[in-house]
């Protein structure tokens, strides 16, 4: 589904991605983990074409992404921080994105699911962080696309919404979709992810299933395993 070869990205002198090779197979949920500033968001933005890589190639849905934009029809993206135009109303934003994508959408079902009806006539600038994130989720899930990229989808959600989100992610997976998630909430990752990609300082240090990760690092929980992976690397570096 996604094929990345030798991906390099520098912001000024700061090397964020240092030759990432990654293959995400079709179907299933992959979680990209890593400490803050390890390049998770940059990696996702490279796939989306929002960040232009210095070198390397990316193929998404069988098409090279360079200088192309049509492949984004196959991608639903949930940005990390829901920055929306603050003077638009929720309903206007949703219909605008529908108008841009020209695809059937099931926004109504999602609006009901996240109880957003009372907010439809409110301006986005007036919404709380959690409500904004719900709108963000509606926008990311309302189209039927084979690839979903979710950057920190749990941010600001209350427990009820979190349960709905997990259900939603699982049902998308059952439809055979490929889902890429970044998150710092290990319990969430443990619950939903099939595969873990561990990114540290712009390089992939681990890729494999949850069980593999735990057995390699001898950690009993994912949280512990990830911490051990991080400290092991640091010891290694020292």
């Amino acid at each position, binding site marked *: 589904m996604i094929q990345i070869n030798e991906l390099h990205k520098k*912001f000024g002198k700061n090397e964020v991605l240092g030759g990432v090779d990654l293959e995400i197979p079709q179907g299933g949920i992959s979680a990209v983990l890593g400490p803050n500033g390890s390049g998770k968001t940059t990696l996702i933005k490279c796939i989306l*074409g*929002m960040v*232009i890589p210095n070198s390397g190639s990316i193929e998404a849905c069988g098409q090279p992404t360079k200088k192309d934009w049509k492949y*984004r029809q196959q991608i639903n993206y949930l940005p990390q921080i829901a*920055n*929306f135009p603050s003077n638009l109303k929720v309903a206007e934003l949703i219909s605008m*994105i529908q*108008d841009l994508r020209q695809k059937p959408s099931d926004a109504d079902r999602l609006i009901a699911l996240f109880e957003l009806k009372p907010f439809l006539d409110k301006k986005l600038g007036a919404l709380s962080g959690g409500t904004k994130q719900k709108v963000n989720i509606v926008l990311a899930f309302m189209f039927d696309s084979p690839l979903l990229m979710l950057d920190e989808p749990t941010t600001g959600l209350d427990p009820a919404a979190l349960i709905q989100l997990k259900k939603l992610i699982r049902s998308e997976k059952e439809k055979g979709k490929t889902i890429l998630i970044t998150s710092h909430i290990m319990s969430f990752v443990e619950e939903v992810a099939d595969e873990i990609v561990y990114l540290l300082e712009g390089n992939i240090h681990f890729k494999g299933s949850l069980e593999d990760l735990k057995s390699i690092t001898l950690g009993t929980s994912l949280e512990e395993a990830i911490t051990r992976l991080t400290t092991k690397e640091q010891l290694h570096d020292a």
Partner: protein
Amino acid sequence: MMLKILKYSFFDLMRSRWSYIYFLFYLALGFVLLFLNNDVSKAVITLMNVIIILVPLIGTIFGVMYYYNSKEFTELLLAQPVKRSSIFLGQYLGVSVSLGLCLVLGLGIPFALYGLFKSDAIWDFSLLLVTGAFLTFIFTALSFNIALSNENKIKGFGYAVLLWLFLAIIYDGLFLLSLIVFGDYPLDVFSLGATVFNPIDLSRTLILLKLDISALLGYTGAVFKTFFGTGLGLLVSLGMLILWTLLPIWRMVHKSKRKDF
């Protein structure tokens, strides 16, 4: 797709208070000049002086402001299946078309009511509006360029104001100064070049050539006239204005394709 984004940007701006203020300002200016002055030709000259300074200023400020304020909107669009050039061209055209409309309608309505269509000044006046529209498109494009190259809002805003200050005021001063300092040398080509490299001077020359008021033409205008003659001079300056519009638009599209968001 570009038209859709143009539409959103356009309606977004049309809902903003500032567009109304800008429109009403021109409307008031048009009425005051015509009905107090009662002389269309004089009104056109006064308008020219206002337009040549004000239009670039508003184009620059609105352009940077809109770019920085719609950052979230842009990021949202970038993740959608939309070409980058469509996003930025759409937003740019949204801003410049709405500003251009404020100008053309704001001044056009009072002039039409005054009976412009029966007057001889209709061509002078139309040229004034066309030049004003060009200046809007040029300076909005320049400001988008500045904003694209500067992540920092304050810096971008500062550069934009400096650009306007330079082209609208300082440039003329430097130009005059160099004419005085190098007065012993032949300055025809130099002054032609200096005019062509400043869209504001270029617009002024263009309008004055059309109005054919030698007293106001100044040195450059006279050089223009002797160099090209009135007809060709008009064409050359109009062509340069088109170039002035296209180059910044081209650079804007080029720059936007290489930018990280």
